């Protein structure tokens, strides 16, 4: 059964159809919440709330966009609310980012010395969290969640040009912060 049929059935009150939709998207919604909230229990709770909101708003969904896009939009808005309530949605200016990168040099040296994947992952997570929200959201959706450009554009109501420029800026900022750690990594050159 295709997704549109499942959505229509769920709109008609079929719990089984909604369960299928939840099964399909639960990991995506959870990992998105996890990328922002960084706490398993809180991210799980946020994911549940997202599906709850989606279920209640289902009668208002007119299938004008993909269900996934619509769900991501709900998820992003809910996660922003959660972060705002937790006081973690503070925007960081570019100047702050540069200051942070200097301040975190010690942490990077430590990660270099340890050369452990987990430490690097923690470092990456920390730096992604330090990005201003608008860059963090784009970077998470594209480079972590793997959403296509046009999908991100629809989820965030942004023009493809804005998505492109914000994503490039986010990657530049992250590279500046991760620089010393990344140069140890190398990387294959495939184009």
């Amino acid at each position, binding site marked *: 059964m295709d997704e549109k049929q499942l959505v229509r059935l769920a709109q008609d009150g079929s719990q089984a159809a909604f369960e299928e939709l939840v099964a399909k998207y639960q990991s995506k919604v959870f990992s998105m919440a996890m990328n922002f909230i960084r706490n398993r229990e809180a991210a799980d709770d946020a994911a549940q709330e997202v599906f*709850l909101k989606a279920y209640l708003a289902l009668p208002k969904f007119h299938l004008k966009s993909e269900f996934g896009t619509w769900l991501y939009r709900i998820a992003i808005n809910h996660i922003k609310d959660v972060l705002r309530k937790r006081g973690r949605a503070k925007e960081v200016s570019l100047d702050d980012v540069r200051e942070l990168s200097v301040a975190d040099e010690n942490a990077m040296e430590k990660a270099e010395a340890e050369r452990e994947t987990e430490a690097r992952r923690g470092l990456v997570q920390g730096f992604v969290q330090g990005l201003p929200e608008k860059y963090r959201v784009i*970077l998470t959706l594209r*480079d972590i969640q793997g959403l296509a450009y046009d999908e991100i554009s629809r989820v965030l109501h942004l023009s493809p040009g804005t998505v492109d420029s914000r994503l490039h800026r986010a990657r530049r900022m992250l590279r500046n912060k991760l620089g010393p750690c*990344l140069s140890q990594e190398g990387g294959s050159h495939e184009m």
Partner: protein
Amino acid sequence: MKCKTAETWILRSLDGRLDERSRGLLAEHLKGCASCRKADAEYRSMMTLLREEREDAPLPRFWERLEPRLREEQKIVPLILWERWALHAIPVFAALVVLAAGLFIFTPQAREMSQSEALLIENANPFSETRSLFEGKRPEDKSMRLIFASLDEKPSVGRQSP
């Protein structure tokens, strides 16, 4: 090619959004530019690290925990809607009461008609009682008329000058 352009092309190439010709030009530039080669390598390892973050599983029994909440929410929604409606209805009701009171206070009230006005409306002569006095046939009315007439004819009694 300038290094700034090369960096933009590197970023596009990470998403496979660089055409054949541009890829060739970028590869040419990278061969001769150590700093862009370094940037390219760093961006690629950064992408690898970011992709390691992908797809985390939620806590177990996700649906089993969600389903009762959905059922509970279905019960609550009509109550919430009613509460919201009531919350909106209270100020509307208060505004209506104030409006009605205002209308009552400021609308000019119909004042009670005087007896003569009432008689005029009824197309009756308001001086009928007086006329009946003058046209009266009763003896006391006649004597009353005579008293008034005598008063009119009486010369004014002033203080006599010395």
